[in-house]
């Protein structure tokens, strides 16, 4: 791009990733203001979500001490809401890494203001996800049996099963996401340390900033390591949900035993993740007055991502149904052509189609892609749609499989639903704490972006 073209581009409001060119100090103060001067709404919100979290803990305690018989699942529907919620949460986690790692490697400037935010979302979503398989073990205190350690029993985990793969995939994902998030956070914690108004805050953030000084040598290693972590996290975006999908794909149930699952799951995960980013981002942007750093350009790009991934999901639904018909297999045909669209859970199926396939089509219009109300409602619909997708996929395949005599209707119990609502509270609680105590828009990265844009404005030279 020539100098004139690029300077014309960066001053246009609808394409700009950073409105105005504030000074370094002004930008810093704006971004760390939520930490230094929290709004009054935080306390009541923390109390409400904190109460919800305590409620979750009591439900968990009840399930752990009573047994998972209090859930609605039983043979033949052995996996139900526990797994639906697990897949839903872990899917949401994918957008964080997609934004922070893949878009970093692709040098997309619109990633910078929203990456920390979505990484935080990822971490807390994966924490919720992890709870469900842990409880599903039935005796969660024996979780360490999944780790290959030399025990007196003389047995080892069965590595040919997809379930140990899942354990490794999810725990690796959580660890790597955390490391990536924290490494990005270190210079910004140092910013708060240096701007702190009280000694206590200075000390606490000083400890968490690990003594960061920001010398040119430090930055050199840092930026290479950060880039490298992005390279390492990128295949994780694709592998984690692929491995989750193998939990289903390597079984032989109609509706599960399908080779399209890994890419289908990954696209769905990124789809739901971007929807959740919008659900969280739109209110935060408004409350913290971040319109100049999270601009119309960001919303527009996220909406386009929703369209792309929404279409991949729609295509996958179509292919699943086509292959079921084309295979000539009666059981496959029954699940896809009869049970899902017209069976007892047909309503849920049609909600899924309406939410996941129709909602993103409004984003063909540019006006809709930047209208925050429309985006917010659409994001909620997609979140619901993706939850119903996992429900349809997991439950309907098991409730009516090969033998008519073993067919059985599944109904979730109040414990199932309480657990799900509890994790929503816990997630919001953790996310609020994150907004309260951590600079959730990356400060040093945004200043670096400003410097890059400044160079661009002036035609490519510092």
């Amino acid at each position: 791009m020539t100098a004139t073209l690029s300077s014309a581009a960066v001053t246009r409001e609808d394409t700009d990733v950073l409105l105005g060119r504030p000074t370094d100090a002004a930008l810093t103060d704006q971004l760390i203001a939520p930490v230094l001067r929290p709004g009054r709404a935080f306390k009541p919100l923390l109390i409400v979500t904190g109460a919800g979290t305590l409620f979750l803990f009591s439900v968990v305690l009840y399930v752990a001490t009573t047994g998972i018989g209090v859930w609605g699942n039983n043979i033949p529907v052995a996996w139900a809401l526990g797994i639906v919620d697990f897949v839903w949460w872990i899917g949401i986690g994918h957008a964080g890494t997609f934004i922070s790692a893949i878009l970093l490697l692709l040098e997309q400037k619109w990633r910078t203001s929203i990456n920390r935010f979505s990484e935080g979302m990822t971490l807390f979503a994966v924490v919720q996800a992890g709870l469900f398989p842990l409880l599903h073990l039935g005796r969660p205190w024996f979780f360490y049996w999944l780790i290959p350690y030399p025990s007196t029993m003389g047995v080892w985990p069965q590595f040919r099963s997809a379930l140990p793969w899942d354990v490794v995939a999810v725990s690796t994902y959580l660890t790597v996401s955390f490391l990536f998030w924290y490494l990005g956070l270190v210079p910004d914690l140092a910013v708060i340390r240096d701007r702190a108004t009280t000694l206590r805050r200075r000390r606490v953030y000083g400890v968490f900033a690990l003594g960061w000084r920001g010398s040119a040598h430090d930055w050199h290693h840092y930026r290479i390591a950060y880039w490298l972590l992005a390279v390492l996290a990128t295949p994780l975006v694709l592998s984690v949900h692929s491995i989750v999908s193998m939990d289903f794909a390597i079984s032989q149930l109609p509706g599960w035993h399908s080779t399209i699952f890994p890419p289908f799951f990954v696209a769905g995960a990124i789809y739901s993740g971007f929807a959740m980013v919008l659900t969280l981002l739109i209110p935060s942007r408004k409350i913290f007055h971040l319109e100049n750093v999270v601009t119309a350009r960001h919303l527009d790009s996220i909406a386009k991502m929703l369209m792309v991934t929404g279409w991949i999901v729609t295509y996958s639904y179509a292919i699943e149904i086509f292959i079921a018909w084309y295979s000539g297999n009666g059981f496959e045909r029954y699940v896809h052509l009869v049970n899902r669209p017209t069976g007892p859970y047909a309503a849920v199926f049609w909600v899924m189609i309406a939410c996941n396939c129709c909602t993103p089509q409004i984003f063909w219009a540019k006006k809709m892609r930047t209208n925050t109300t429309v985006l917010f409602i659409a994001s909620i619909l997609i979140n619901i749609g993706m939850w119903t997708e996992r429900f349809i996929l997991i439950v309907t395949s098991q409730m009516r499989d090969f033998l008519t005599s073993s067919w059985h209707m599944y109904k979730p119990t109040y414990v199932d639903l309480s657990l799900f609502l509890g994790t929503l509270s816990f997630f919001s609680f953790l996310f609020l704490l994150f907004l309260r105590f951590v600079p959730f828009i990356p400060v040093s990265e945004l200043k670096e972006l400003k410097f890059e844009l400044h160079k661009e404005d002036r035609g490519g030279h510092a």
Partner: protein
Amino acid sequence: MRDMKLGIMAEFESPEALLLAVSKLREMGLRKLDAYTPYPIREIEPLLEIKRSYIPKVVLAMGLVGAAGAYTLQWWCAAVSYPLNVGGRPLHSAPAFIPITFETTVLFAAGTCFLLALYAAGLPRLHHPVFEVEGFESASIDGYWVAIAADDPKLDALVAERELIGAGATRVVQVNP
């Protein structure tokens, strides 16, 4: 430069001013220099003769260690220590061992990468002499600092100070005078 003994430090208002000042100091023959900035400025790396980071090589090696370790562990568990015949399928069932091998590769590599990034920057530590420098808090906000080592053979404190002020420094500090 890690743990150099600080001689003179100066603060500038913009990255451009810092880059000019560093070039000027280099023209004076000074070589033991460092810069402190709120974000990475790539243009300064050749001026400070920063060598390419060793992190990627170590990360690759540790990734391979993770891969070999995970594969060996699975093979040993499934084929040697506790062989389980499932319908006559091979005990050493390589394709089934790939997902965990892959994940462990990433885990080892990422862990190494994180720890090395901290180690290379001399972290974690609770204190550092540079924090004693007056006004250094700005180095993470909007101050672009240059540091000259006390033991640079070409350092003449008075000349350097004059040059730094001439280059537009908003603050010049003599550390441990």
